[in-house]
């Protein structure tokens, strides 16, 4: 793992059970450094966990590695922003088919919710995937600042 003053991390993780927790903790620590509110961090962590599980369970990658890049910045108005790239070198998947499959299956189906959870918890999600090149999910969380969350809780 590398960490620099401009708040970037890169991790190469083996595809072993529960490795997603390591990625979530790393991103959470960086987000806390930026002053992101805890609820935004929790949402980001759950999305990151699902992205790592998708890579581990479905990518079929030969190298059995998940490549995680996390960059922390601030928006023009000072809100903390985290960009995360989750990459695998697997077989890719059909994003359109995955989304339409979910809609066809109805409101309650037991498996295959990872993409919906990622998109619900993050502000921006972009997926690049090919059968030859694997998959990269780039997702962005623009969180409330911790002091804003504390202020809103005080008002309620």
């Amino acid at each position: 793992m590398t960490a620099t003053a401009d708040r970037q991390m890169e991790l190469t993780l083996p595809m072993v059970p529960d490795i997603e927790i390591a990625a979530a903790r790393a991103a959470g620590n960086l987000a806390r450094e930026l002053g992101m509110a805890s609820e935004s961090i929790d949402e980001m962590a759950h999305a990151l966990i699902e992205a790592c599980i998708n890579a581990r369970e479905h990518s079929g990658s030969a190298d059995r590695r998940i490549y995680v890049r996390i960059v922390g910045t601030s928006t023009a108005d000072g809100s903390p922003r985290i960009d995360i790239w989750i990459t695998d070198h697997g077989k890719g998947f059909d994003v359109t088919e995955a989304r339409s499959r979910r809609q066809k299956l109805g409101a309650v189906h037991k498996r295959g919710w990872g993409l919906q959870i990622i998109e619900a918890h993050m502000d921006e999600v972009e997926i690049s995937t090919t059968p030859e090149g694997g998959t990269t999910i780039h997702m962005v969380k623009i969180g409330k600042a911790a002091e804003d969350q504390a202020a809103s809780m005080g008002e309620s």
Partner: protein
Amino acid sequence: MTDELRVSVDRRGTTGAILYTKGYINNVGGEEIANRAYELMDQGVRTLLLNLRETKIVNSIGISILIEIIEKMMDNGGKIGFCCLTPVIHKTFQIMGLANYAAMFTDEESAAKELAL
């Protein structure tokens, strides 16, 4: 590395129970909850409250196992509720449709009252 899930049970009468979880609800954690829930069902429990006060992280595989527990309880004519969810876990449950089949409560007291535990 992870918060291995721990489960404890508080029996309420002959047909009720509160199941407390502590840690990550993943596939292993979900199976642990299912094992305890099915034991309770075999013992006649038909009203089960899952208190997730000490669970801060869930994943979709773990939730899929919770859905199986709900389905089995409904097949047995019983009901399941959840309480003390973090806002993000509550949101995730809503995304996956649990809120359609199990009641969600903010605290244990209101849940126990509503479920008559």
